[in-house]
């Protein structure tokens, strides 16, 4: 499959379909890889934060705080 881009010239209204250069292909693949890596990092950070929150809530509950009191602390 040929990699293409659609370019519309907003001044003339002309639309052309052109084949991507090797540099453009490399750039978009690099960007996609960067986004994928960032997403893995983001999900891991979110899961770690959630685990820490649940751990803290459990410790507070063990100290005798009610659920409402624990919820009030995070507002």
């Amino acid at each position, binding site marked *: 499959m040929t990699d293409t881009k659609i370019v519309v010239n907003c001044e003339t209204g002309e639309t052309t379909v052109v084949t991507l250069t090797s540099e*453009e292909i490399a750039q978009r693949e690099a960007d*996609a890889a960067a986004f994928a890596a960032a997403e893995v990092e983001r999900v891991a950070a979110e899961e770690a934060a959630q685990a820490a929150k649940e751990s803290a809530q459990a410790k507070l509950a063990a100290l005798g705080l009610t659920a409402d009191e624990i919820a009030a602390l995070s507002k």
Partner: protein
Amino acid sequence: MANMIPISTVTVGSGGSSTIQFSNIPQNYTDLKLIVSARMNYGSGINYSTFTVNSDSPSSLTYFKNVVTEGSATVSTYSQSSYGTGGEVTIGPAPGTSPIFNSFEIYMPNYSGATYKPYTVDLVNSNTLWFWMSGNMYYNTAPITSLKLYNSYNFSQYSSATLYGIRKY
């Protein structure tokens, strides 16, 4: 009263295309608005499309975004520094797994001005049930003359993007 005037529309043909680019954007409007309805030639998961301005790399764009996912009462907040490069829009997945087209809108006020340019992105992803709003900044004082959307997969046939000019007077 502001007028929203269509400048150009791109509709992807059979075979798809990985990139949609608006070039030679006229400078005689006050704001720009880009409305996209698209799906990706991608089997599963989330596909990240990239949004760039002029000939700059995505790193010239930063964002601070809020993401809400279905079933979650929590708004997740991210900034570029903790999340990666800017200019991201998330649309996938698509044919074969779902016929759903997803949409996003980009609003760029003062796009021809000689200052840094803040802009907003509103996105709905019906496949992954993401709702996304972000405040962004294009860190360049040059007028915006070109906008480009691209990704590692193809925009599927019938995906479309329309660029509007906003004229306030």
